[in-house]
C-alpha cells in the first residue's frame, strides 16, 4: 500500500477516475497547463487532454453552471474552486440550480465541487475560510471533509460516484502535512463518521484539519484520561448513530470547528446531542470554534483565533474535571 500525502491522495483519486470512467472531467482555473494552484492536477492535461482537464475563465458561476449542465446530460464533472472562499461567486448555480434540480425536475446532478478550504498559513480573510456550513444549510447538497490521506481518496471516489451534488472540503493545511497509507485503485469511503481514537471519559468531535489537532491535544497532559476522538468525515449526511453512540459511551462532549462558531457544523452536532443524547450527558456540551471574525492576515492573530492544541486541551481538562 503506497504512502501518499493528503494532496497526492486527491490527485490519485482524480487520476483513477479519469482513467476508469470516460464521463469524468475536471474543470477549474489554471488546473490544466499550470497544474492547479496547489498542483493537484499537475501533469493531468498531458495524459487526459484539454477536453477532460479544462482550464476555465475566472468565473465560478460559469464553472459550476456549465458543470451542472454536463452532469444533467450524464457527465461526471469535478469542479475545482481555486480557494473555497471563491465559491460565493458560484453560490446560485450550486445552491439554487444544482441543489434543487432533483426536487424540481427529477434530474440527478452527479457533480463534485472541490473546495480547498481552511486557514493556518496567513492567507487572510479571502483565502482561509471554511464555508461548509453554508451548504449544510441548503437541502440537496452533500458535504464531506476528509482528515486523512486514505479518506481523502476514498471520499473523493465516493463523491464522484454519488448521484447528488457533493461539496468536497479539502483542507489546504493538510495537503502536505498529512501522510498515510492509501489503497491503490478505486475504492469508496462511506459518508459516515470514524472513531479516530477510542475512549470512554470524553469524546472530542471534529472533522477536517481539527482531527489532527484533537488527536495531538488528547495525546498527553490529561492525566491518562480516556478520550475518544470522533472524525465526522461527512457533514451531510451527518452520522447521527456514530455521534450518539460516542456520547452514550463517554457522556461528555467537546466539539471543535475551525469554521466561525455561529451555525457551524459543530452547532448542528451540539443540537443533535441536546435533542437525542440528553439522557447520556454528564456535563455541558462544550464547543471550541473560531470566533465570529474574519481570519486575520497577521500570523499571531490568526493563531489566536483558530482552535489550536492548547485551547482544545484546556477545554478537555475543564470537561474532565467537571
Amino acid at each position: 500500500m503506497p504512502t501518499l500525502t493528503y494532496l497526492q491522495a486527491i490527485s490519485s483519486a482524480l487520476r483513477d477516475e479519469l482513467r476508469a470512467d470516460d464521463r469524468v472531467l475536471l474543470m477549474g482555473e489554471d488546473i490544466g497547463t499550470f497544474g492547479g494552484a496547489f498542483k493537484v492536477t499537475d501533469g493531468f492535461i498531458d495524459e487526459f487532454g484539454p477536453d477532460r482537464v479544462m482550464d476555465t475563465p475566472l468565473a465560478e458561476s460559469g464553472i459550476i453552471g456549465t458543470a451542472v449542465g454536463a452532469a444533467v446530460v450524464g457527465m461526471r464533472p469535478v469542479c475545482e474552486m481555486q480557494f473555497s472562499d471563491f465559491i460565493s461567486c458560484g453560490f446560485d448555480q450550486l445552491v439554487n440550480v444544482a441543489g434543487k434540480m432533483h426536487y424540481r425536475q427529477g434530474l440527478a446532478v452527479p457533480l463534485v465541487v472541490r473546495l480547498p478550504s481552511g486557514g493556518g498559513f496567513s492567507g487572510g480573510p479571502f483565502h482561509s475560510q471554511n464555508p461548509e456550513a453554508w451548504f449544510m444549510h441548503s437541502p440537496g447538497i452533500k458535504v464531506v471533509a476528509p482528515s486523512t490521506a486514505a479518506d481523502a481518496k476514498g471520499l473523493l471516489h465516493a463523491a464522484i460516484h454519488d448521484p447528488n451534488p457533493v461539496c468536497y472540503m479539502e483542507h489546504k493545511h493538510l495537503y502536505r502535512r498529512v501522510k498515510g497509507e492509501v489503497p491503490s485503485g478505486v475504492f469508496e469511503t462511506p459518508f459516515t463518521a470514524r472513531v479516530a481514537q477510542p475512549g470512554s471519559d470524553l469524546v472530542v468531535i471534529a472533522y477536517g484539519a481539527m482531527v489532527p489537532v484533537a488527536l495531538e491535544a488528547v495525546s498527553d497532559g490529561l492525566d491518562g484520561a480516556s478520550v475518544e476522538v470522533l472524525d465526522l468525515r461527512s457533514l451531510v449526511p451527518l452520522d447521527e448513530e456514530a455521534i450518539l453512540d460516542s456520547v452514550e459511551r463517554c457522556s461528555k462532549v467537546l466539539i471543535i470547528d475551525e469554521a466561525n462558531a455561529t451555525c457551524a457544523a459543530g452547532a448542528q452536532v451540539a443540537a443533535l446531542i441536546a435533542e437525542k443524547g440528553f439522557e447520556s450527558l454528564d456535563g455541558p456540551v462544550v464547543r471550541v470554534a473560531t470566533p465570529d471574525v474574519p481570519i486575520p492576515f497577521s500570523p499571531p492573530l490568526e493563531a489566536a483565533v483558530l482552535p489550536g492544541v492548547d485551547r482544545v486541551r484546556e477545554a478537555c481538562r475543564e470537561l474532565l474535571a467537571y
Partner: protein
Amino acid sequence: MSSSPTDLLVDVTMPQMGVSVAEGTVVAWRVEPGDRIEAEATICEISTDKIDTEVPSPASGVVTEILVPIGETVDVGTVMARIAVGGNGVAPATPAPAADDPSPLDGGAGGPSTPEPKSSSPPAPVVRNGNRRYSPVVQRIASEHGIDLSQVPGTGRGGRVRKQDVLAFVDASPVEEPPLHIESPYRPDPVPEPVAGGGELSRMRRQIGEHMKRSLDTAATCTTWIEVDMSRVEAARARLGVTALAFVSRACIDAIREHPALNAWLEGEKYTLHTDVNLGIAVSLGDDGLIVPVIPRAHELSVEGLAARIKDIARRARGRQLTPDDVYGGTFTITNPGQYGSIMATPIINQPQVAILDLEAVVKRAVVVTDADGNDSIAIRPMTILGLSWDHRALDGALSAQFLATVKRQLESVS
C-alpha cells in the same frame, strides 16, 4: 471561638455500659450548642443493642459543640460533645448570659466587656454535597439501579457527582441475582384496605429481630420437651405466696449444678463455662417488646429470694428503669409466657448462652400414676411441659434430656 483561654473543654463521650457494649446510638440531644448544662443533668439519650439510657453531663458549663448527630452510631469512648467550663475546670460564677445573646461562651470570661460577642457561634458542620444537581446520565443510572444519589460521594468540581462516581457506587453495591424469569407469574396480593396501622419498626423491635435472627443463624438450635407433674409445686407456691417461675428457676439452678455444661457461653470457637448462675428472666413489655434482665449470682438465692428478685426486675423493666448492667452477663435464661394457656414453644437461645428453658401453662390433666405398690390409676394432676432449646454445637441431646429430667425430679420432689 471567643471563649477565654482559661476555659477548659470537657469531652462528653459515649459511655461504657456493661462489658459487652461496644457502641451506642444517639437518640436525642437535650441541649443545643450554646446551652448551659449542670453536671449530672441529662445531656443526651442513647441506645445500645441492649438498652436505652440517658447520659449525664460530666461537668457544668456551656455546650460548645455537638459532634454526633441524632441517629448516628459511634464506638464507646467517642467524643459526642464538648462542654466549656470556666477556668480551672470550675463552672463559671457569672450569671447565665441573656437569652438573646447567641454567644454564651463569653459568660465565663467576665461578661459585657468582651468585644466580639457575635462571632463566637460554633462553626457550622460542613454540609457535604448539599443542594446538589445531577446530570441527566447520572440521574438515569441512579434510577436504573435504584440508587439514592445523596449517598454517592462526588469527585467532580465542587463535589459534583460524576458519571464515574455513580458507576463506581453501582460497582461497589452488592449485585442482585437476576431473576430466572423476567416475567414472573407471581403477583403480590393487593394490600387489603383499610390499613389499620403500621410504619417503621420501633428500635426495640428491630433489635429483638436482629438478636433472634443472629441466634438462629449462629446456633444449631434443638428443642427437647419434658412433662412435669406440678402438684407439689402448686401446693408449695400457694403456701409461700410465690410464683411457679421461682420454683422452676431454683430447679434449673440445681440442675445446672448437676450439669454445668448448660451454664455456658459459646462465642464462635470459644466456649466459656461459668461458675456463677446469672439467671436471665424474659420480661414482656407489652406491645413494645421484650427484655431479659439478669439476676446475678442467682444460685445464692432461695425460692423466696428468687421470687422477690424476679418481681423486682420485672417491675423495673416495665418502668423502663433498668440500667445496662441489669441486662448484662446472663448465663442461662428462662422464658415464661404460659399465663395465656399455651402449652409448648420452641424458644430461641439468648446468645451467647447455650440453652433456654421455656415454662408454659400448668394445666390439670388426667394422668396415669403408679403407687408405691406398683398399682396404676388415673389421677387429675396439674401438669406442665418444659421446653429446653439448646445449642447442638455445645452439647448433645442426651445431656439436654438429663438436664430436663433433673429439673423434673427437683420440681416433683419439692417439699
